[in-house]
C-alpha cells in the first residue's frame, strides 16, 4: 500500500471547519486584554465560555490526531489565554474594595490573632525593659534615643520644658506636611517589618523590640517629673491607632515567618503562600490605619491639648479598632 491510497480525511477539514471559531475567540480575548471586560456585549459574554470549550476540545483532538505543531501551539496559547480570562479574573475593583472592608480585613486580622498577642506582649515587655534600664542608669537614654529625635526631651530637661513639649502649640505651621511625612515614614517601616518576617520573623522581633525600648526610655524621662499621664495622652491620641498598626504589621510578618518555619501538614510552599496572602490583606489595613494615625498626630494632637479630650479620642479609636476586628464580617463569612 502506498501513501497515495491514504484517505483525505482528517486535519484539513478539521482546521477549515473550526478556524472561524478560533479567530472569533482570539478577537474577543484581544478586546478583553487590550481594553476592558466591559467592552464585551451580552452576546460576547455568552459566546466566550462556549468558544473556550470548543477550542479546548479542538486542542485535545489535535494533540491526538494531528502533527501540525503550529496549530497545536496556537490552540494551546489560545486556550491558556481564555482559561486565565475565565477562571483567573477577579471581581470588579469596587466590589473587591467593599469585600475587603466588609469581611476580608477583619477576618485576616483575626487569622493572625496569636501572633498579634505575641508581638503586643513583646512590645510591652521591651517598653518596660527600656523604662527600667534608663531609670537604673540615665546614661542609657542617650544610647537608646538619637539626639535629633529627643530634641532636648532628655533626662536633664526641666519639668517645665517637658510640659511645654506636650501642651504648647507648635510654633511653625506645616502640620499637613508633618502628617504626610509621618504617614509615609511609618508605613514604610511597617512594610519593612512585614517583609522581614520572611526570615523566620527574627528581624521583625528586633524591629518591634527596639521600638518598644524607645517608648519605655521616653517614659523614663517624663514619669519622674510627674508627667506620666500627660505623656500618655499626648502619645495615645494617635498612638492607640499607630501602635496597633505597628503591632499588626509585626504580627503579619511573624505570621509568614511562622508558616515558613512550621508549615504543619501542608507543604512549606503552600503554607507560605496562604500566610502571605492573609498577611498582605492585613498590611493594606495597616497602611490605612497609619494614614488615620498620621492625620491624628499631625492635626488632632497639636490642636487638642486637654488631657481629657486626648484620652477620650484615644479610647474611642481603640474601641473602634478592637470592635471592628473582633466582630467585623463574622456574619458574612462564618
Amino acid at each position: 500500500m502506498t501513501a497515495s491510497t491514504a484517505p483525505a480525511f482528517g486535519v484539513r477539514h478539521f482546521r477549515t471547519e473550526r478556524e472561524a471559531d478560533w479567530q472569533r475567540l482570539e478577537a474577543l480575548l484581544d478586546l478583553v486584554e487590550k481594553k476592558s471586560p466591559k467592552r464585551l456585549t451580552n452576546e460576547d459574554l455568552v459566546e466566550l465560555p462556549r468558544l473556550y470549550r470548543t477550542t479546548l476540545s479542538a486542542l485535545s483532538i489535535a494533540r491526538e490526531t494531528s502533527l501540525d505543531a503550529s496549530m497545536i501551539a496556537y490552540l494551546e496559547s489560545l486556550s491558556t489565554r481564555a482559561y486565565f480570562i475565565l477562571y483567573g479574573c477577579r471581581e470588579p475593583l469596587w466590589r473587591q474594595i467593599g469585600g475587603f472592608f466588609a469581611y476580608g480585613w477583619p477576618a485576616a486580622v483575626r487569622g493572625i490573632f496569636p501572633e498579634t498577642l505575641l508581638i503586643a506582649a513583646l512590645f510591652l515587655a521591651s517598653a518596660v525593659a527600656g523604662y527600667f534600664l534608663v531609670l537604673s542608669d540615665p546614661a542609657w537614654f542617650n544610647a537608646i534615643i538619637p539626639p535629633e529625635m529627643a530634641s532636648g526631651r532628655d533626662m536633664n530637661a526641666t519639668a517645665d520644658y517637658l510640659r511645654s513639649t506636650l501642651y504648647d502649640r507648635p510654633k511653625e505651621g506645616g502640620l499637613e506636611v508633618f502628617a504626610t511625612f509621618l504617614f509615609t515614614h511609618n508605613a514604610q517601616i511597617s512594610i519593612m517589618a512585614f517583609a522581614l518576617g520572611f526570615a523566620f520573623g527574627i528581624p521583625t522581633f528586633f524591629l518591634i523590640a527596639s521600638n518598644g525600648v524607645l517608648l519605655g526610655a521616653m517614659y523614663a524621662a517624663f514619669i519622674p517629673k510627674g508627667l506620666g499621664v500627660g505623656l500618655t495622652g499626648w502619645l495615645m491620641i494617635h498612638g492607640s491607632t499607630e501602635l496597633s498598626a505597628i503591632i499588626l504589621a509585626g504580627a503579619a510578618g511573624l505570621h509568614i515567618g511562622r508558616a515558613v518555619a512550621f508549615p504543619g501538614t501542608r507543604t512549606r510552599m503552600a503554607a507560605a503562600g496562604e500566610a502571605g496572602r492573609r498577611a498582605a490583606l492585613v498590611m493594606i489595613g495597616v497602611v490605612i490605619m497609619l494614614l488615620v494615625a498620621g492625620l491624628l498626630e499631625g492635626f488632632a494632637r497639636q490642636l487638642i491639648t486637654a488631657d481629657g479630650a486626648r484620652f477620650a479620642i484615644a479610647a474611642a479609636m481603640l474601641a473602634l479598632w478592637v470592635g471592628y476586628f473582633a466582630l467585623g464580617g463574622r456574619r458574612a463569612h462564618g
Partner: protein
Amino acid sequence: MAEPRTAADKKERRLRELVTPEGVTLHLRLASAGSRAGAFTVDAVIMLVILIALTVLAFFIIGGFRTIGPAAIIWLLGFFLLRNFYFTLFESGVRAATPGKRMLKLRVVARDGGRLTGGAILARNLMREVEVFLPLIFLLSAQAQGFSNRWLALLGFAWTGIFLFMPLFNRDRLRAGDLIAGTWVVENERPKIAPDLLAANDSARTDAWGFTPHELETYGQFEIQRLEDVLHRNDPDTVTTVAGVIRRKIGRRDQGGSWSEDRAFLEAYYTAARLHLERRLLFGQRKRDKFDSTG
C-alpha cells in the same frame, strides 16, 4: 530518545502543567531569569522617569505657591505610592503584568492555576521592599558615609545577592515574593497559526513521487514537525541541506539541483509522511521520533 536536544531540553525544563476543570492539560512555560531581569529593568526605568517628573512637578508647584507645603505633600505621597503600589496596580489588571512584563511577554499567575487574588499580588510586591529597596537604601547610605564599615558593606552585598539571584537557585524560578504569594511568572507568548501546509499541496502532485510506507516511516513526529518549521521559514540554504539529508536517509538518489526542486520534494515528502503518520495516529500508533521503533 537519547537524541541531544539541549536547547529544547532547557525549554522543556521550564514547562509546568495546568489541568483545567474540563480535564485538559495546558502547558505553562516559566519565564527565564533573563527576561524577568529585563522586565524589571524596564519597570525600574519607568519608575525613575515618573519620580523625576514628580520632582520637577513639585518644584514648579513650590514656585507657584511660594510655600513648600503642597509640593512636599505631593512628592512624599507620590513617592510612597510609586514605591509600594506601582507593581501592584499594574499586576491587578486583566493582563496581570507591568509595562515591563508586557514588553517581554510575561504575566503573573497563581501557582495553583486558580484566581490571582489581590492579596497575592500585594504580598509578592511588598516583598520587593527587602529584595530591592532595602539593599538600595543600604548601598546609598553606605556610599554617603564612605563605606565606614567594610563588614557591613559586605553583608549588604551578600543580602542583595541572596535575594537577587534567588530565582536561579530553585527550579520554579521563584523570587522571595513569589514564594510568599503563591505565584509564578510565566511566558505569555502568542504564536500565530501558520498556514496549513497540507491545504497548500494537492495530493495528485504528492502521489507522483510514489513514496513507500517504509520511506515514510523513516522519521517520526519530532522530525516531521521540525520539517514543518523548515518549510514555514523557507530559507533556501536550509531547504537544500534538509532535502539532501532526507534523500540520503530514505535512499533516494540525489536528483536535486535547483532550490525549487528541493522545495517541491520536501513539500511532497512532508505531506505524504504527515498524512501517513496521522493515519496511524488514528489507530493509536504514535511514532515519536526516528529512534522510536514501537510506533
